[in-house]
């Protein structure tokens, strides 16, 4: 995808935008302090599942929007995987046109209320903001994105994107996570008849089974899905493409194109002794039990979850943070992150690490488990860990952790949650013949077109990337839709 700077220039040249720019000198704008996100109190919120961030107030949002300088060449857009017209939506907020702002967002982003909450803005749009050059905190693009889309949803005046006249071409989307939803919306806008097949009993993929309520309330995901339904996207749950019906069966039903967004699969473990002891979870299992199955409401809900005083979470990514903060909310006295590198190398969003610390999460960095020790019932009771030090940078650019010999010691623990990543879901490669797969189990795609080795099948998100973010998955969905459209035009 490339940014259409010509179109942006034209929008920027509109009279109202010019007037708005003139209404306050740039120097004055840069003097405004970045908005502070209103949050729930750490020691209260760590006992419930309410959303941590409360969202900007209208007044705050307008002031924050004034900070945006409406640059002639907005670099922020290049930092966004779906190339949102960032100054475009922010200037609408400054003008007080919140509904218009939401519309601008929706032109390029199927799930703005989600992205405003879970994107790692500090590594994306906000990292490219002009304020960085002035050594000042960037415009709070994520907060503003969330503000505009929440405003729209809360007023009940949700705009449904325009849909082209139907071209009667049926396409199937496998998986209803962020990449699939984005692909579906883009194709639907272009006039395709889209059906999304979901294996689970709820739609949203990682947005519903993975990301906790306190970071992304499920009603927001539902609202986004409702608007896709209104556009005409069909949703089929409890259906596993490749098993419930094969590709050929779906082709017989008239589907001509496919998008695979089947997402993350099998949790990774470290293959150390004792890892299959009782009360050792993968993050996926722990979070799925709680988010999708509502085990935190056990026994009102039938799915159980073990609650305990001492919980260790292995890993330093967003999933690990979600797990450890969830464990705290389930009553853990000690909820501990064990991470083999230092805090600087943690892949989690800065805000999540910050929130975790506020909530009383303990961090044991430069430490790595080497063995789990069980009691007589095979329940984990201790972790043997070893201390690490940082060596030379590895291929990811982060300094490689090295074990310090003789530094092992044990920690008493009741529950361990392993959150060190996932391998791609094996169901699709197992059941669709002719798809090229890498040795890691991810699907091979043309990087430009996201086309798989079968020309009418496109793919994106974690099934291609192995493990990434919501917004990168969405970027894939968008890119795949563009190239699927080209494929059908040239067919």
């Amino acid at each position, binding site marked *: 995808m490339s940014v259409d700077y010509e179109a942006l220039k034209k929008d920027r040249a509109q009279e109202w935008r010019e007037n708005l720019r003139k209404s306050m000198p740039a120097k004055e704008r840069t003097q405004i302090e970045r908005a502070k996100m209103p949050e729930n109190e750490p020691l209260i919120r760590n006992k419930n599942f309410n959303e941590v961030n409360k969202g900007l107030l209208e007044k705050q949002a307008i002031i924050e929007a004034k900070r945006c300088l409406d640059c002639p060449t907005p670099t922020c857009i290049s930092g966004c995987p779906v190339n949102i017209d960032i100054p475009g939506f922010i200037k609408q907020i400054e003008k007080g046109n919140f509904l218009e702002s939401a519309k601008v967002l929706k032109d390029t982003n199927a799930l703005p209320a989600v992205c405003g909450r879970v994107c790692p803005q500090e590594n994306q749009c906000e990292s490219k903001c002009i304020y960085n050059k002035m050594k000042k905190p960037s415009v709070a693009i994520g907060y503003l994105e969330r503000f505009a889309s929440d405003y729209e949803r809360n007023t009940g005046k949700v705009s449904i994107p325009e849909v082209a006249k139907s071209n009667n071409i049926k396409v199937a989307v496998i998986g209803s996570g962020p990449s699939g939803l984005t692909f579906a919306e883009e194709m639907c806008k272009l006039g395709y008849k889209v059906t999304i097949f979901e294996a689970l*009993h709820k739609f949203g993929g990682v947005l519903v089974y993975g990301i906790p309520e306190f970071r992304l309330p499920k009603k927001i995901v539902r609202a986004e899905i409702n608007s896709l339904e209104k556009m005409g996207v069909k949703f089929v749950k*409890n259906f*596993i493409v490749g098993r419930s019906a094969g590709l050929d069966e779906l082709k017989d039903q008239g589907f001509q194109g496919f998008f695979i967004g089947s997402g993350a*699969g099998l949790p990774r473990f470290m293959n150390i002794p004792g890892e299959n002891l*009782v009360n050792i979870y993968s993050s996926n*299992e722990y979070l799925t039990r709680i988010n999708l199955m509502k085990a935190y409401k*056990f*026994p009102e809900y039938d799915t*159980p979850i073990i609650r305990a005083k001492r919980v260790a979470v292995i890993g330093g990514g967003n999933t690990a943070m979600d797990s450890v903060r969830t464990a705290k909310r389930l009553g853990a006295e000690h909820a501990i992150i064990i991470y083999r590198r230092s805090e600087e190398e943690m892949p989690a969003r800065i805000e999540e690490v910050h929130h975790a610390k506020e909530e009383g999460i303990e961090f044991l960095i430069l430490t790595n488990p080497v063995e789990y020790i069980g009691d007589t019932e*095979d329940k984990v009771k201790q972790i043997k860990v070893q201390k690490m030090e940082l060596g030379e940078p590895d291929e990811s650019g982060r300094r490689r952790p090295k074990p310090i010999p003789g530094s092992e010691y044990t920690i008493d623990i009741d529950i361990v949650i392993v959150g060190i990543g996932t391998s791609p879901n094996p169901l699709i490669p197992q059941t669709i013949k002719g798809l090229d797969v890498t040795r890691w189990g991810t699907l091979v795609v043309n990087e430009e077109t996201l086309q798989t080795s079968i020309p009418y099948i496109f793919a994106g998100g974690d099934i291609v990337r192995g493990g990434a973010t919501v917004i990168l998955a969405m970027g894939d969905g968008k890119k795949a839709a563009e190239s699927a459209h080209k494929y059908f035009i040239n067919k």
Partner: protein
Amino acid sequence: MYKVVEKRVLSENVAKLIIENKTIAKNRKPGQFVIIKMGETGERIPLTIADSDTEKGTITIIVQKVGTSSHKLFNLNAGDHISDLVGPLGQPTKVENIGTVIAAGGGVGVAPLYPIAKAFKEAGNKLITILAARTKDLIILENEMKEFADEFMIMTDDGSYGKKGLITAGIEDVIKREKVDMVICLGPAIMMKFIALLTKKYNIHTIASLNTIMVDGTGMCGACRVTVGGKTKFVCVDGPEFNAHEVDFDGMLKRLNAYKKEEETSYSKYLKDLK
């Protein structure tokens, strides 16, 4: 929503349910399972498919009430609906013609064994079927299994029906008598553990179909993991069938009991609410 079209109570705690689901009926193969969830508050539980009717678009499952979810399922009647049903899941059984095969089933494990045994017979094997249960009332699908077996045997722990003794004794009798090329077993984990120990002694290839705790059942959560040949395997996507001689049954048994206390809490609450 998926309609229950027929229910038959097989014994005090065991019922057979025939449920509408065209796609599963059409595409399921022996050895595969489904995940069922009942209502908003229900949990996702795996159940192996006993049979299907492609024309009517139905599948058959057999359920034994042991806890909240299985009891909820047992209490369904013809005309009721199940909110969520997905499948078929898992790798189908690798059916081949290898000679003489013992199909050994214990308790409700006999239900999923039925299509597997039938497939081995149809592939041209000599099929010796051995069913076992604690007592006579718990033997299910006797006539169905008998119909296509070359030899058929029943064992009960208390001797109330068939021969008295454990299933392993019945298997060992056959092994001592004639050459057995393969054993396929399905039932309680503890039973499969002892069958595996026995057949290992005689070096007979043995397949066990494992029924572990699952959440999603689609290769995502890892709740079902079990150690096989020293490696972590996932029953939902790598299995459910594995070389029984490589399965760490002790580890599996412990993991099956991981929620014992919670299951009791939930079940007593359920039974109280029923009243």
